[in-house]
């Protein structure tokens, strides 16, 4: 019983890391640009398909193809920004959020149907030769694909933090997040910053897609579910709060796993949504956000 609970919590944390990673891109984009890209789940889907085809056609290991996935999604994100989202940047914040939400929703409809057309409705997944290997610690099993989630998430969290904290571009992104007008007066080209943040967010979604394809399965209509998860996590962590997002993911993962352990796995998704609504109503700045940020 106790060991089982331990296993459950570990799985909750590992899966929660994936939720965090899925939300990371969404949160980055929202924080910097105030675009609410509800087509994020579809970007995750594209990432999943990119690594799936790299695996099945080129024989590339899904973890080795991550750079390739990043490039593809980065370019896709840049194109999306230029073609669609850049048209909303002049709007005041509130209507910007609303309009990008609507536009992104239209995009998700388009992407789903394009995916159906080109990837078919078949369920796809990546199963590597080493997927069932695991190590045991105190009677709790740590399967490699799940541990990989945590490793990849931590790596990308560190990379993202390094970019944001140490590079000039990263500082420009943070400055734009805090006050785009002041950033503009520093000589920062905010269009470039927006483009870059959007493309980076898309690339992060792509990485998450790889992990989804390895751990679960992918198909054209998977987007909404993952967008929902990302929204929950983003709100839990505080809108645009990068480290908070990962912690939010872990909390969601734990909430789900404990719900299935103590109540029923039928209600794990519902539990996440309830938590989301409670936080939304009673602490809209997120569990870790301060009012100012």
């Amino acid at each position, binding site marked *: 019983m106790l060991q089982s609970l331990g296993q459950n919590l570990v799985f909750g944390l590992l899966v929660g890391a994936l939720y965090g990673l899925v939300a990371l891109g969404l949160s980055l984009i929202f924080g910097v640009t105030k675009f609410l890209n509800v087509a994020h789940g579809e970007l995750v889907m594209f990432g999943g398909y990119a690594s799936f085809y790299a695996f099945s056609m080129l024989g590339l290991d899904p973890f080795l193809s991550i750079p390739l996935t990043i490039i593809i999604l980065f370019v896709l994100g840049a194109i999306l920004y230029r073609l669609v989202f850049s048209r909303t940047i002049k709007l005041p914040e509130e209507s910007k*959020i609303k*309009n990008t939400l609507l536009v992104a929703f*239209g*995009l998700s409809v388009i992407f789903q149907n394009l995916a159906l057309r080109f990837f078919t409705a078949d369920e796809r997944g990546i199963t590597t030769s080493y997927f069932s290997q695991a190590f045991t610690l105190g009677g709790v099993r740590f399967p490699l694909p799940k541990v990989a989630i945590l490793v990849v998430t931590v790596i990308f969290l560190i990379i993202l933090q390094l970019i944001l904290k140490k590079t000039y571009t990263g500082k420009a992104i943070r400055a734009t997040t805090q006050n785009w007008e002041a950033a503009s007066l520093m000589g920062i080209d905010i269009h470039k910053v927006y483009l870059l943040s959007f493309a980076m967010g898309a690339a992060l979604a792509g990485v998450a897609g790889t992990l989804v394809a390895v751990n679960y399965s992918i198909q054209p209509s998977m987007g909404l579910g993952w967008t929902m998860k990302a929204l929950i996590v983003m709100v839990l962590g505080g809108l645009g709060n990068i480290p908070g997002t990962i912690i939010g993911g872990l909390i969601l993962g734990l909430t789900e796993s404990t719900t299935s352990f103590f109540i029923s796995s039928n209600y794990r*998704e*519902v539990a996440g949504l309830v938590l989301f*609504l409670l936080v*939304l*109503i009673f602490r*809209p700045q997120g569990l870790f956000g301060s009012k100012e940020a």
Partner: protein
Amino acid sequence: MKKNNIIKLILIIVVVALLVVLPLVIKNDSTINLVILVLLYILLASSWNILGGYTGQTNLGHAAFFGVGSLTTRLLWVNGVPFLLSFLAGGVVAVILALIIGAPAFKLRGVYFAIGTLALAQMLNLTVGNILPEMSYNPDLANYQLLPRYYLFLGLTLITILTAAILVKSRIGLGMMAVREGEDAAESLGISALKHKLIALSISAFFAGMAGAAFAYYHVSFYYYMPFGSEWTFDPMMMAYIGGTGTIIGPIIGAVFFVLLKQLLVWNVGEYHLIIFGTLFILIVLFLPGGLVEIWQKFRTFLTKKTKRRKKVLLKATIQNEDGIQRE
């Protein structure tokens, strides 16, 4: 102008009359089913528009009210409650749900409200699927008739449109629009934002619930959780936007357009209709926030300007002519 009004009134009467006699003239069930689909979407898009369009609260949980309405009506009706009673119960329960969630939901502003309502509908969808996973069958299949269902939808749609039209002309309607333009400004004018949002939500939910009730009566067999699906929010919302939010006619145009486009495209190019519809939706949100109605209005002002100009030219010509005559 007065003459114009009479023409419009006559047009409306003609349309309604046409819709009333339609199933008697066209005995084709498929056409009637198609019109029912259009009416259902008009109901959903118009009711969404009351809160989403006129009050400016992007409600992504409209399906929750539609679903609750259909669930209530179907359960009561299947279990032997008289039809009319179970039918009305659908709308009433939707309003009750609206009142329960309204106060906390409206603590959320703007985008928070949108994603909050989306989460709410998803939650209900999953929960109903968990509790009532089974298929609901029509209890009396042998005596199924399309006509009463058609008139039910028609009547409900007319009532919804009429209510919306009266509402937006009323003081409450003006208050709703003031809230849309800016809550703080509205409050400073003494308009309670919460009150108006709650009223709009309740009315919107009521008609969504009634649409659900009609759906429950219409459909031969469906899963109880299905009307809670997000497409029942997203499709009507897209229709309202494409037609033009914050207008009475917009959702109607949007719904008609959606269903026709879908029918035409399904027949000709397979599954492309959603790609085209999605693209159109994006274009409208980005470049034509007034929707198709705006195109029409622009076109009309363009026309009237043109005729006015032509009249002016004619007038000038006549004057010149008269001058000429005088000179002769």
